[in-house]
């Protein structure tokens, strides 16, 4: 994307020896340190911190508050453990497969162990590598920023299999999923050599790569794992929605880094993305709240929080492409649609998507991806959206994500077993898996 700082760069190049425009890069490259924008870098460092905060403690609390008291620690552990494991995998090979030029489906191994990603001190010339996808910030920052996306995506899946999956099996599944599902999809959609990117699929901040992807994987896992013990018979109310509301709030705040950060610059486009994010979230929260108020008679804390998340999910692919008013429309529809998805759909089909990973992230992501095709503004983004092209991206992700996730789960179940024993589930995962409990 051409940067705001282009004007400045031009000005400088007019004075200094002419230098290749950062935005002509097609692969990570070594550039002189003064090619960077400190402002863009400042915002991207911040965005990285914000997106990490979305997963821990944000998502951990959002989910942790919804489970029964005997499973809260195990639920927090899923998000936290995922954060640590994916950090290592991203360094190992994930980043390289996702964000280096490669074939139409996956990147190269050039950046395995972050090899070749360098920063050379000013004393030695003051050079460093930048990614071709974010030429005004250090590659280290871009890799970190994208790492936080790779971290939260598998963590989202856990909402679907809460309360019954072995921690060991989960680590194996999420690791495999991160490499076999996340990295390729990210490459296809975001890296110029990826075929969906070439096909013109629009996904500003991850509606497809992150949310649809996690949503369908969630659906697959609750189908493979089956329902929670006593599902439908025993009451399983959220044990502490205070945690859930803290989580939803931190997700909201952190999402500014997610969406406005996806501009990889502190510019007007980032501002538009942030504004769209806010509008959609407010509208979606109210959409869900009123839908529930009318249909059930009371507006609930879980409802308004879920609506906010649904809005954040739906605007993710659109932010940076749409105007604020379009964002209101997207948010409102996401709130209402996801309300019905989460409250009716699963009871209709009878699967136990415990915390609605599919109902909110899957459905909301699909809705947002398609509406991006409808509302994308050429003025803001320089491109036109196409419902058809978007549908292509959605379909690919749904099919690939669902099939591979399902297969992975079946295999892992055969190998080590996915589900805890009945006694463990009855006693609660906190004590049975982690030997801890909360007062």
């Amino acid at each position, binding site marked *: 994307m051409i940067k705001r700082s282009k004007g400045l760069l031009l000005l400088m190049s007019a004075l200094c020896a002419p230098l290749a425009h950062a935005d002509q890069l097609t692969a990570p490259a070594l550039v002189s340190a003064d090619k960077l924008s400190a402002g863009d870098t400042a915002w991207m460092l911040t965005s990285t911190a914000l997106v990490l905060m979305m997963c821990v403690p944000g998502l951990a609390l959002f989910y942790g508050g919804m489970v029964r008291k005997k499973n809260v620690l195990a639920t927090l552990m899923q998000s936290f453990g995922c954060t640590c494991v994916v950090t290592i995998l991203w360094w190992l090979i994930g980043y390289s497969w996702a964000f280096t030029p490669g074939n139409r489906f996956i990147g190269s191994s050039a950046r395995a162990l972050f090899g070749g990603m360098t920063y050379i001190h000013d004393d030695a010339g003051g050079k460093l590598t930048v990614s071709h996808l974010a030429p005004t910030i250090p590659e280290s920052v871009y890799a970190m920023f994208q790492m936080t996306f790779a971290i939260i995506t598998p963590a989202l899946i856990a909402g679907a299999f809460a309360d019954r999956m072995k921690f060991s099996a989960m680590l194996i599944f999420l690791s495999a999923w991160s490499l076999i599902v996340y990295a390729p999809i990210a490459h296809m959609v975001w890296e110029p050599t990826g075929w969906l990117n070439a096909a013109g699929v629009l996904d500003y901040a991850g509606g497809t790569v992150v949310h649809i992807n996690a949503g369908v994987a969630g659906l697959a896992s609750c189908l493979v794992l089956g329902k929670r013990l006593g599902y439908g018979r025993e*009451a*399983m*109310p*959220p044990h502490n929605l205070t945690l859930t509301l803290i989580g939803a709030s931190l997700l909201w705040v952190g999402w500014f880094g997610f969406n406005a950060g996806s501009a990889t610059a502190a510019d007007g486009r980032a501002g538009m993305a942030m504004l769209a994010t806010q509008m959609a979230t407010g509208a979606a929260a109210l959409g869900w709240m009123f839908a529930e108020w009318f249909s*059930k008679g*009371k507006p*609930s804390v*879980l*409802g308004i929080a*879920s609506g906010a998340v649904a809005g954040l999910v739906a605007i993710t692919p659109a932010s940076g492409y749409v105007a604020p008013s379009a964002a209101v429309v997207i948010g409102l529809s996401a709130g209402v649609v996801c309300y019905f998805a*989460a*409250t*009716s759909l699963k*009871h209709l089909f009878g699967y136990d998507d415990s915390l*609605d990973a599919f109902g909110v992230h899957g459905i909301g992501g699909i809705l947002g991806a398609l509406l991006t095709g409808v509302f994308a503004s050429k003025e803001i983004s320089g491109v036109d959206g196409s419902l058809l092209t978007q549908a292509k991206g959605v379909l690919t992700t749904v099919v690939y994500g669902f099939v591979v996730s399902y297969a992975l789960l079946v295999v892992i179940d055969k190998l080590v077993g996915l589900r805890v024993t009945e006694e463990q589930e009855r006693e609660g995962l906190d004590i049975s898996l982690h030997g801890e409990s909360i007062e």
Partner: protein
Amino acid sequence: MKLVTAIIKPFKLDEVRKAVSDIGVQGLTVTEVRGFGRQRGHTEIYRGAEYVVEFVPKTKIEVAVTDAMLESVIEAIQTSAHTGKVGDGKIFVFALTQVVRIRTGERDASAI
């Protein structure tokens, strides 16, 4: 000696405590309980899943008394815990075969 147990509405605790203190009760023990009876519970809905909470929060009071004081204590509890609305609760009386004060080892009446 008798043990008077009363299941009352939580917000009545202070009134009842005062009432029995006023007639000379020196101590009592309180437990948070949940009650099921004529008074209906409430319904909670989480993402479309309805949970009927049949139980209502109640407070249980236990007072050991001498036979002499029994009636006045029952009387005091009944009037102070009374609202007239369904769910006011119950008073149960048990016979106590022995009472010991741990600190002093005193027994029975003098231990109450």
